[in-house]
Structures are given as C-alpha cells and as structure tokens.
C-alpha cells in the first residue's frame, strides 16, 4: 500500500502507529490490509478500539477522505464508521485470487476515474469478507447509493449480500472495500485497474481520464 501511494502521488505517506492520538493534517487516511492484533476476537475488532481511531473518527467527521482496504474495511465497520459487518467467507476458505468489480457509483472522488457500470479487475485476499447488514441497513445503503463496488460476472468470492465489495459512508468521504486495488497499479502487476481509485482519492486524475 505504501509503495502504491508513494508511486502514484510522488510523496511517501506518513506512517502512524496505532497508539498515536493525533494525526498530522493530510488529504487521505488509508487503513491498509493485513492482520491486526492477530485478528483476535473478530477481524479488525481490536484495531477499531485502538487510540488512533478516535483521531480517525474526528477526521472522518470533518470530511477527510478515509480509505480502508481489507482489514482496514473490517476496522471501519467494527468502529461503526461504516455500517454492517464482515463475516467468515461463506465457503469457509481463505480466498486469494482475482475478481471482477463493477463500479456501482462513480459519482464520488474515489471512483470518479471510472464509469458507472464499468467492470474492472481486482485481486482479493481474505478470510472474513462476507458483507452482512440487516435488511433495513442494506436497503438504506442501496437507497442512498452507498455501494461503491460489487463483485461482477459471478465472481463473488465470499457470499457478500448484494455482491457488495465496497461501500461509502453516508457523507461519501469514507470508503471501505475488501479487494486490494493497490495490488494492480502498475504494468508489472499485469494491469493498472486499481490506479484510478488512488488518483481520484488524491485529486490526481488528469482531465482526460476523468
């Protein structure tokens, strides 16, 4: 994630330790994937209660863009910055493969580099990516156009409801997604489909691309 952010923005991101209580001023906060605190209790549960999350919560309420990928998405749902929960994959196995994502909402800086309905490639690697929300929450997500990405062409790898792969908060400045766009940003990755997400998030989209 750090390599992708550095290559795309030309600046190395500031790394923040989980015990910090203040965040430097920034354009984008990224909670990357991996595993946090052994993922004990529930994936992302302990990370969501880390001291730094209070500052992340404040930044979110002020409109700072926040991106959570994989364990970062789990941390955002556990901290209630995003609705719903990510449960054990329906097939019970860890999935590590490439899926297809449909851009469900391109009317947001994170997805402005794509067209609504466009299908892109993206890798996934997770054990707990099965998106769940109660029917009322799910309806409000759909009604408010908060679904950012859906697994497309029958590639839902985990049983997520409504094929949900990524969602925005109501205000649109917080995005959580299970797939890893940072792993498809340069030709050496065999494709650059994930790159426009970061360019959008950091206001780096060229006019032609947008």
């Amino acid at each position, binding site marked *: 994630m750090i390599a992708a952010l550095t290559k795309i923005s030309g600046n190395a991101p500031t790394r923040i330790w989980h015990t910090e209580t203040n965040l430097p001023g920034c354009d984008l906060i990224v909670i990357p994937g991996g595993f946090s605190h052994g993922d004990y*209790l*529930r994936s992302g*549960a302990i990370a969501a209660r880390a001291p730094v999350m209070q500052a992340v919560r404040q930044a979110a309420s002020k409109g700072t863009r926040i991106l959570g990928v994989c364990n970062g998405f789990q941390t955002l749902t556990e901290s209630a910055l995003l609705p719903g*929960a990510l*449960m054990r994959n329906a*097939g019970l196995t860890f999935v590590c493969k490439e899926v297809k994502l449909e851009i469900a909402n391109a009317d947001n800086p994170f997805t402005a580099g794509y067209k609504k309905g466009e299908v892109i490639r993206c890798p996934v690697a997770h054990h707990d990516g099965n998106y769940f929300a109660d029917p009322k929450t799910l309806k409000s997500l759909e009604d408010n156009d908060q679904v950012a990405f859906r697994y497309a062409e029958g590639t839902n790898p985990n049983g997520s409801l409504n094929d949900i792969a990524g969602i925005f908060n109501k205000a649109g400045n917080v995005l959580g997604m299970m797939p890893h766009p940072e792993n498809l940003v340069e030709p050496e990755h065999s494709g650059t489909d994930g790159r426009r997400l970061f360019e959008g998030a950091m206001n780096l989209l060229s006019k032609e691309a947008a």
Partner: protein
Amino acid sequence: MARTFNARVTVTLKNGVLDPQGKAIEGALASLGFDGVGQVRQGKVFDIDLEATSSKAARARLEDMCEKLLANTVIEDYSVEVS
C-alpha cells in the same frame, strides 16, 4: 466492599445471520454418525473475573463491555451470568 465476581459472557450470532462455521460443524457431526443433529450455531464464551461492589454493578459493567467490545451487536447477541 468490593469483591471478586466470576462472570461468564456468552456471545452468539443473531438469528438469521448465516453461520458458515456452524454449518461445517453440523456436516462434520453428521459424517461422524451423530443422527438427529439439527442446526448447529457456533458462539464464543468469555470467563471474566472482576471486582465490583455488587452483583448488579458487576453485571452493568459486563453489559457495557459487551456493547463496547465483546460482541459486535450488528451480528451478535450476548448474555451475562454473574456468580
């Protein structure tokens, strides 16, 4: 006077939430020849010792712990026993 209470907190998935782990256990029980097994749901148990002035105070703190950490109330229910 504060004394130590022994508590058991049980966290289970809400009805209607798919439990793939419970399903896998259900299948394994059937393959071991256990007949008549209906639905299996997997949950978590926490045994917690804590100091409190009364059983009521202990219970209130444990319920607060469930709301803030032990359970994800989006998908889970909890129950608290204090002795």
